[in-house]
C-alpha cells in the first residue's frame, strides 16, 4: 500500500520533471528564429482551417440557446432587453472561449499529438535531428506560436457569431426588437469582457499546443502508443482548460 503510493508519487514527480525539461527546451528553441519563423505561417493556416467550422457551429447553437434560456429565466420579472446583456456577457466571458477551447483540444490537440507521435515512432524526429535540425524549433515552436496567436482570432469570431445568432433568435423567436437587443448588449458592456475572453483563448491555445507536442514527442511503441498519447493529450488539455478558466476568473475578475 505504502509502496504503491510511493511509486505513484515518484511517477508524477518524474512526469513533472520531463514536462519542465520540455518547457525549457522549447523556450531555448525560441532563439532559433530562422528555423521556426517560416514554418509558423503554415501552422497558422492549418489551425485556422481546422478550427473555423467547429467554432462557427458551436457559437451559432450556443447563441440561440442563450437567448432562449435567458428569456425563460427572466419570466417577465426582468425586462426582456436583458436577454442581450446575458447573451453578450456569457458569450464573451465564458462560452465562446471555453466551448471552442474544449472542441479544439479535441481537434487541434489530437491532430498535433497524433502527427508528432507518428513522426516519433517512425523515427522522423530522429531523422530531423540527424539532419542537424532542432526538433523543438522545427516542430514544436511553430505549432505553439500558431495556436497561441490563432485561438484568440477564432474565439473572437465565435463571440461575434454567437451574439449574432442570439440576436437573430431574439428577434425571430422572442418578442424582442433589434434596438432593445442592442440596448441590452451595450448596457453593462466593458472592453474587459472582450479581452478577458481573448486572454483565456490565448492561454488555451498555448496549453493545448504544448500538451499535444509534449505527448506526441514522448510517444513510444508504434500505433498503439500514438493512440494512447493522443487520447491522453486530449483529456489533459480539456482538464487544463477548465483549471485555467477558473484561474483567470480568480486572477482577473
Amino acid at each position, binding site marked *: 500500500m505504502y509502496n504503491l503510493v510511493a511509486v505513484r508519487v515518484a511517477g508524477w514527480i518524474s512526469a513533472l520533471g520531463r514536462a519542465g525539461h520540455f518547457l525549457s527546451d522549447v523556450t531555448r528553441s525560441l532563439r532559433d528564429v530562422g528555423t521556426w519563423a517560416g514554418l509558423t505561417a503554415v501552422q497558422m493556416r492549418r489551425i485556422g482551417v481546422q478550427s473555423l467550422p467547429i467554432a462557427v457551429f458551436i457559437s451559432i447553437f450556443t447563441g440561440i440557446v442563450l437567448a432562449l434560456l435567458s428569456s425563460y429565466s427572466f419570466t417577465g420579472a426582468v425586462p426582456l432587453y436583458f436577454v442581450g446583456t446575458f447573451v453578450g456577457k456569457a458569450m464573451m466571458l465564458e462560452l465562446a472561449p471555453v466551448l471552442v477551447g474544449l472542441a479544439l483540444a479535441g481537434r487541434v490537440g489530437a491532430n498535433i499529438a497524433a502527427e508528432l507521435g507518428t513522426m516519433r515512432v517512425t523515427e522522423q524526429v*530522429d*531523422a530531423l535531428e540527424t539532419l542537424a535540425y532542432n526538433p523543438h524549433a522545427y516542430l514544436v515552436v511553430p505549432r505553439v506560436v500558431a495556436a497561441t496567436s490563432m485561438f484568440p482570432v477564432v474565439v473572437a469570431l465565435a463571440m461575434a457569431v454567437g451574439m449574432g445568432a442570439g440576436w437573430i433568435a431574439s428577434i425571430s423567436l422572442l418578442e424582442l426588437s433589434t434596438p432593445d437587443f442592442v440596448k441590452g448588449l451595450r448596457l453593462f458592456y466593458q472592453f474587459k469582457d472582450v479581452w478577458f475572453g481573448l486572454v483565456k483563448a490565448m492561454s488555451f491555445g498555448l496549453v493545448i499546443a504544448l500538451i499535444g507536442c509534449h505527448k506526441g514527442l514522448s510517444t513510444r511503441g508504434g500505433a498503439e502508443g500514438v493512440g494512447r498519447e493522443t487520447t491522453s493529450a486530449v483529456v489533459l488539455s480539456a482538464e487544463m482548460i477548465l483549471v485555467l478558466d477558473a484561474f483567470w476568473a480568480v486572477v482577473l475578475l
Partner: protein
Amino acid sequence: MIVFRNVHKRFGTKQVLQGFSLDVKEGETMVVIGYSGSGKSVALKHVVGLLAPDEGEVEVDGRIVHQLDRAGLVELRSQIGFVFQFAALFDSMTVRENLALGLRRQKVNSRTIEERVRESLALVDLMGAEDRYPAELSGGMRKRVGLARAIALRPRYLLYDEPTTGLDPVTAAVINELMVRTRERLGVTGIVVTHDMTSAYRVADRIAMLYRGAIRQVGTVEQVQRTHDPIVRQFIEGRPEGAADAEGAAAGTTR
C-alpha cells in the same frame, strides 16, 4: 575514426549495452550483427548523439559525442549520414524536399541543392522520382530515398540501420550493391547494423557481433566465417538450437 569505449546504456531496468567497445577505422565498412532487440540501433544512435551513454563514451574524429555542445553537435551531424531502418522519410514532403532539407540547413545555395538532389537520386537509380511523396513509393524505393537523403549531404560517415531488413532478396541485393557503390564513389566510412548475413558478407570489411550488450567477436569476413565461437557460429549459420540465447540476447534486466 569512430571509437566506442566501454559504453553502457539502460532504459529503466533494462540494461541494453554493457561495456560495448569497438573501433571503426577510416575508410572501412564495419558490419555489426546481432539478434533483434540486442541493442544494435541503440549503439548506432550514440554515434550521432541521439542517445547519450550512461557510462563510457563514443568518440568521432577525436570528439567525445556526448560532451559536444549544440553547435558542436550540429557540426558533427553534418558529417554523418544516418539511413534509418524504415527510411524515416518526412511523409508531408516530396522526395526532393526530403533530400533538400538537410542541405538547406547547411546553407547550401539553391542551385547546388538542385544539383545534389539530382546526383544523389542518380546514385541510387531513382532519377525522376523527385516530385513523388513517400507514400507513393515501394519499401525498397523508400530505402533508396533514405540513402539518397543521407548521401546528399556528402557525409564522411554513413550509418545504416538494417538496410535490407524486410525487403525481398532481389531488392536486398540491389541495396547491397548501392552500399558498395556509395562507398566506392564517396569513400565513406560506414557502420552497417544488420542480421542479414548475405548482406554482411557482401558489404563488410570487418564484422562484429553484438551479444549481451557487448562485442562478442570482431574480425574480417574470413575470420568470422571460420570462427569456432559457438555463439557466433550459431548466429551466422542461423541454427535454431545451440549455446546462444536469442531471447536473452540483450544484456538483461537489472533489479
